[in-house]
């Protein structure tokens, strides 16, 4: 089958040039100083040192905080939704999941932009409140607006991922639990929930990753002053022109994301192993 193996060769060159080299360039820029020319670089750690300035550390912490709150909210809202959908009739499941996924196909900027006219000081919510003779509430350019925008954009991923885990669950296991005398709460806590955890975990990665790196949502709903790590990177590359510092921040962000994905994967493995040993242990 040598003939066909050759088909992979051009892509190996392509991938080196367009995937591997750009990654290496980010690392190179992060550790060097001086201008935008590759040929005249000097090695330095200053770009990373700069990041530990309290101003930038605060941005980092804020991004983590917002991303974690968003992820938690997505689990809290997404789990019950996925659970309800997984328990209705089959035709309804298909229809409801289609309805949940349609917004995912609509341009993220458009979806986020739509919230501006709802949340703004003279927006739909405040117009409605004024009609009820209630004072305007400041919503735009707050943490609330940013987190709302993130939950709005990323919740479908969480629902989809938990729903997949719940839908492919072996119904016989649940029936067995009832047959053996467990009530609804016990069955949920000890059988259904543990078995659905892989779905929750893949949902966490699907939500946390974009939430920590997005710069559109904070820019649209948080305003020009609202800085998350994505905005910081964008600023360095587009406005300030500090490509080296920008590369260093991106590298740190990529490391954090890789690290948290590694941790969640390990957690996933631990959970599966625990569930398996619990399974074994239950066979008294």
């Amino acid at each position, binding site marked *: 089958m040598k*003939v*066909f*193996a*050759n*088909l*992979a060769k051009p*892509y*190996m060159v*392509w*991938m080196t040039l367009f*995937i*591997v*080299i*750009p*990654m290496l*360039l*980010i690392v190179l820029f992060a550790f060097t100083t001086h201008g*935008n020319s590759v040929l005249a670089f000097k090695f330095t750690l200053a770009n990373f040192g700069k990041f530990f300035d309290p101003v930038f550390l605060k941005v980092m912490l804020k991004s983590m905080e917002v991303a974690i709150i968003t992820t938690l909210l997505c689990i809290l809202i997404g789990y019950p*939704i996925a659970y*309800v*959908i997984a*328990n209705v009739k089959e035709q309804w499941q298909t229809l*409801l999941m*289609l*309805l*949940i996924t*349609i*917004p995912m*196909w*609509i*341009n*993220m*900027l*458009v*979806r986020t*932009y*739509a919230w*501006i*006219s*709802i949340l*703004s000081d*003279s*927006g*739909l919510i405040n*117009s409605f409140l004024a009609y009820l003779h209630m004072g305007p509430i400041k919503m735009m350019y707050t943490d609330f607006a940013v987190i709302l925008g993130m939950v*709005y954009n990323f*919740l479908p991923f969480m629902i989809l991922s938990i729903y997949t885990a719940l839908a492919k669950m072996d119904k016989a296991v649940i029936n067995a639990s009832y047959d053996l005398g467990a009530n609804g709460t016990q069955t949920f806590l000890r059988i259904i929930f543990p078995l659905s955890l892989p779905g929750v975990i893949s949902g966490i990665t699907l939500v946390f*990753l974009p939430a920590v*790196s997005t*710069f*559109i949502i904070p820019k649209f709903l948080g305003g020009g002053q609202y800085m998350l790590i994505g905005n910081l*990177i964008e600023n360095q*590359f587009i406005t300030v022109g500090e490509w080296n510092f*920008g*590369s260093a921040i*991106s590298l740190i*962000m*990529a490391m954090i*994301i890789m690290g948290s*994905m590694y941790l969640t994967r390990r957690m996933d493995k631990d959970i599966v192993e625990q569930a398996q040993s619990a399974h074994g242990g239950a066979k008294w």
Partner: protein
Amino acid sequence: MVGSKNRFLFGAILIGTVLFFFYAPIMSLMIFSFNNSRSLTAWAGFSTQWYTALFNNREMMNAINTTVLVAVMSTFISTAVGTLTAIGISKSRKIIREIVINVNSFPILNPEIVTAIGLMLLYSSLSIEKGLLTMLLAHIIFSTPYVILSVLPKLRSLDPDIAEAAMDLGATPMQALRKVIVPLILPGVISGALIAFTMSFDDFVISYFVSGNGVKNISIMVYTMSKRINPSINALSTILVVIITLVLLVINLLPLLKKKEVRGVE
């Protein structure tokens, strides 16, 4: 009985609330695209003036053209490259397969902004001027891994001897590829192409960093215009939402139609 009724009600309210949360912003966006004033909150009567404004706006029409052109070309190229590569690595040694799959997963796992600045640094290091071509190239680069990922499982479930059988029976490798392998993995190729198309069509982050010289796609257009309220964005968004919903309906109905066709043939 009362318990199950309450549970049903609770479930229905929950789903209803979330669907309202998902669709209310999209609905308000669509409704106010027909507003007879600039306001996005106060209704001033029905009009299609923003649609007229949209079609008379040269910049916006250019953005639409760019988006469609880049999406079609990058889908075409990345689907071809991705499919051939997937076939290639499925017949390659394990180590090569592992390397390609792992390197491929970088653009998929990395945040878009990291891929974007990587490409931006590459272009500027090679002093390539940013424009339409750099955007197109970037789209091909980030779409191809998804095509490979969607074709590979189909190849795995393929009988490994089937291409050999075709060639033993006198087919050239090209014929074996065209008439035997590709038709068998076609569902994977099509879903790969669909992913590539939607990724390209909706992309903002990567396009934003790698294009220049006034080359804008729809997303970049929305991004630059969002600072001042312009209902033409709503008009454009409404058109996009309608097209996407129609496409999704067709895709979801197509399997049903196909089933009928097969039955007809029988």
